[in-house]
């Protein structure tokens, strides 16, 4: 490998890993929800779309810097997720695992089609001067929004880790994940905890949407693609396994980027799907098995 | 010293086991992780023979049962049925060959009627209307024909047990595995079940039964195996096993029924 090839490789890998960071962020939200409630959230990508459209709307209306929309999108996402768990999914009772799939699928359709009615089908983007700027880091050129996205992912996942392992709320969440009944007996209000967890998961998706907005076009069904990515990430890492989701995200970003560069860009989305199917068939507990610590 | 739960035998086993063993298991060992649930158990069942499996709770009886019927993989040992090695055969394959079982916690298909529950099993050897007729015949044999159209979810415990037995019988097995079919029934229910099992053995069916109630197993079995902590404690003629000091100790040391 000569130096030009090496640069191309590092460049591709670095971009892949940064995109993978975003996938990790999306997957962490999905995995958190699954880990605590055994619910596979089929509307996950649509919550991401909400984050994108909040950013778009605020930019259009007030010319608000996209990253400042985080202050709106994250709380809105949390509130939305909290309400959905509390008032919709909680009603499913013991039919949860099968019915929640259909319910979240329905919610996703409602979200994407409401966005369609509100914003139209046309892909839309926002123009911020730094969106197309790049920085040079050790011979590798990276776009600023991608770097911000990477930092945002780090901060979010770091924050979640702190919440889960250093706070009283985190203890209650982990207790609920391991044994809802036992947690309830110890005085944990599990309905509230579950709603908080769903809120956090949705907030993570919305944050990812905001971070993606300077990089991508927003359109109402953009979420579909990201729901699939979230599934891939969580299955690679093992459903409910949070550190696994982070690694799964990075792996997905890496193989997509390298596959697109070295094999064919047309099949960019296929590499992750194939990896996903292989893991599903050969190692359904995820790449890291059951030994890794869950939520 | 006598066993508290042992009542005098009311009748001798009257069926006559005959011919070479139908089912043979040798050196069955089952381990879950580091725990050995069943250790080096061997047994054989001939047509018409009733083999009783006793032992205190946690002795590994149900695990042995599951290993014999294929629901649990034996870590060591060999199982043959009718001369064929079935050690690695799936439960459904064993069922097709002629092994039927009941479950300790009876599990009817709740969405189906009593008749349909048996029909599912009757389809193993019959097709169409013949399967339905066969299912009815079996229901009559266990005394559930008048409940045929009732949803299985509505049956009481005694009838659930009989349904469980009917499903197994509808497979027309050659060896029947009964996992605590009698415990929990009221005395008349117990007597009916005992009579039914005896008739089945007389018709040439080999029967392996796990049972908690000592006097039942003593009166029914031709041969008894007593297990404790996964290991063989004693085996042989029911009287001898019941009188075996280790068996008495195992039962008195445990919360007996």
């Amino acid at each position, binding site marked *: 490998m000569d130096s030009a090839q090496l640069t191309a490789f590092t460049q591709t890998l670095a971009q892949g890993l940064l995109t993978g960071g975003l996938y990790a962020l999306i997957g962490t939200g999905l995995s958190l929800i699954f880990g605590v409630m055994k619910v596979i959230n089929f509307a996950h990508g649509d919550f991401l779309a909400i984050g994108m459209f909040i950013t778009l709307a605020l930019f259009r209306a007030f010319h608000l810097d996209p990253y400042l929309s985080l202050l709106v999108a994250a709380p809105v996402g949390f509130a939305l997720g909290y309400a959905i768990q509390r008032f919709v999914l909680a009603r499913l009772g013991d039919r949860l695992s099968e019915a929640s*799939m259909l319910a979240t699928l329905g919610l996703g359709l409602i979200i994407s089609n409401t966005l369609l009615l509100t914003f139209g089908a046309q892909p839309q983007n926002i123009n911020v001067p730094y969106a197309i700027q790049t920085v040079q880091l050790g011979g590798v050129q990276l776009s600023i929004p991608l770097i911000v996205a990477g930092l945002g992912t780090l901060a979010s996942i770091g924050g979640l880790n702190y919440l889960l392992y250093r706070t009283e709320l985190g203890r209650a969440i982990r207790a609920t994940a391991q044994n809802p009944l036992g947690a309830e007996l110890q005085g944990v209000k599990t309905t509230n905890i579950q709603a908080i967890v769903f809120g956090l998961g949705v907030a993570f998706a919305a944050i990812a949407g905001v971070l993606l907005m300077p990089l991508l076009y927003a359109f109402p069904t953009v979420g579909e693609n990201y729901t699939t990515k979230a599934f891939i990430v969580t299955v690679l890492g093992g459903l409910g396994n949070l550190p696994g989701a982070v690694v799964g995200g990075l792996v997905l970003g890496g193989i997509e980027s390298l596959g697109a560069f070295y094999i064919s860009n047309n099949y960019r989305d296929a590499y992750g799907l194939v990896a996903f199917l292989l893991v599903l068939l050969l190692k359904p507990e995820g790449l890291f098995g059951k030994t890794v610590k869950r939520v | 010293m006598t066993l508290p739960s042992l009542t005098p035998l009311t009748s001798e086993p009257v069926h006559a086991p005959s011919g070479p063993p139908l089912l043979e298991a040798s050196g069955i060992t089952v381990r879950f992780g580091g725990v050995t649930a069943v250790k080096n158990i061997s047994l054989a069942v001939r047509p018409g023979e009733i083999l009783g499996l006793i032992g205190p709770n946690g002795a590994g009886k149900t695990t042995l049962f599951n290993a014999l019927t294929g629901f649990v993989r034996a870590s060591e040992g060999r199982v043959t049925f009718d001369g064929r090695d079935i050690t690695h055969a799936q439960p459904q394959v064993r069922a097709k060959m002629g092994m039927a079982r009941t479950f300790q916690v009876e599990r009817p298909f709740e969405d189906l009627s009593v008749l349909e529950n048996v029909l599912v099993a009757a389809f193993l050897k019959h097709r169409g209307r013949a399967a339905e007729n066969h299912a009815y015949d079996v229901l009559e044999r266990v005394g559930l024909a008048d409940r045929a159209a009732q949803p299985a979810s509505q049956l009481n415990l005694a009838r659930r047990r009989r349904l469980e037995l009917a499903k197994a019988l509808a497979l027309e097995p050659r060896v029947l595995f009964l996992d605590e079919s009698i415990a929990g029934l009221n005395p008349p229910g117990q007597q009916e079940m005992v009579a039914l099992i005896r008739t089945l053995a007389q018709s040439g069916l080999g029967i392996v039964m796990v049972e908690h109630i000592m006097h039942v197993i003593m009166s029914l079995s031709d041969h008894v195996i007593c297990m404790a902590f996964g290991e063989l404690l004693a085996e042989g003629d029911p009287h001898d096993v019941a009188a075996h000091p280790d068996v008495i100790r195992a039962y008195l040391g445990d919360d007996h029924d």
Partner: protein
Amino acid sequence: MTASVTPARPRALTFGNVWISLALIAVMAVYPLLFGKSMNFGVSTLIFAGLAMSWNLLGGWAGQTSLGHAALLGIGAYTMTILATPERVPAFLGGPLAPWWGALIGMALAALLALVWGSLTFRLRGSYFTLSTIAVALVIRLVAINSDWTGGSEGLFMPELPRFLGLDLFDRQAEYWLAFAFVILTLIITHAVRRSRLGYALQAVREDEDGARALGIDPTRMKVIAFVISAVLTALGGSLYAIYLQAFEPHTLLELPISVQIALMAIIGGRGSIQGPAIGAILLAVFGEVFRTVFANANLLIYGVLILAVTLYAPDGITGLFTRGGRKLGTAR
């Protein structure tokens, strides 16, 4: 027991409620007389009714929720069209094939795919099968978009087709009766499954896999059989749909929303009943038509609202509301 008098034996082994099917068939037969001007609507509705029925053999009877049926639909559509197009048909076939041969080959390919796919994934329990269907369908979609022999992202045009039993295949009337026959076929097969060993085995497996295994039933095998039947019928529906569309592209035919639509029609209609999926498809098509001016291309909004309502308030679907307490096929819990 002295059973000198054989008591009446109520039958369990029936074809299910045939009258509802006959009523449904009557409605479909009368439609062209009443709405002869809306044949487009009629044809597409019937095709989707048949597709929902086909989906239900796997999704309802076997209790395996597929969100990848668009791929099977696509296999039927693409195979028939490619083999009927002179410029696209593989050289060794020596010329274009009649659409019925193409449809049969499409069905065979779909059967093969379902066989392999099912054998591999039915070992997994729970939602993993559903996730795998999404992934397989998306991979197939990517292949269709990026290959030359599939017409790439522009898709395919239907070539001239020979007459089928004297029918002009591009005449909406003829297409209507073909779609009508397709729905009847799926109804007949569902009724036959209801009465068969397969039907009972599937219900047993859906409720309790170990309990079924103890009765000599191989759960994976039963699910694979249901999947293959479902796939074959879906591919047939795909061939019909291709004729109806006359031109199609991967972005419309192979997308996830098509899979979701088929599944939701069946579930909203009621996967617990024999005719529920067809009724669901018809109801949703009518809703879509009524609200078309309001929602335009956001018509999946109705699906979203209805599936949410059904999961919350009517787990057995719309038809389940009317058969509660009656004999039902049962629902996956």
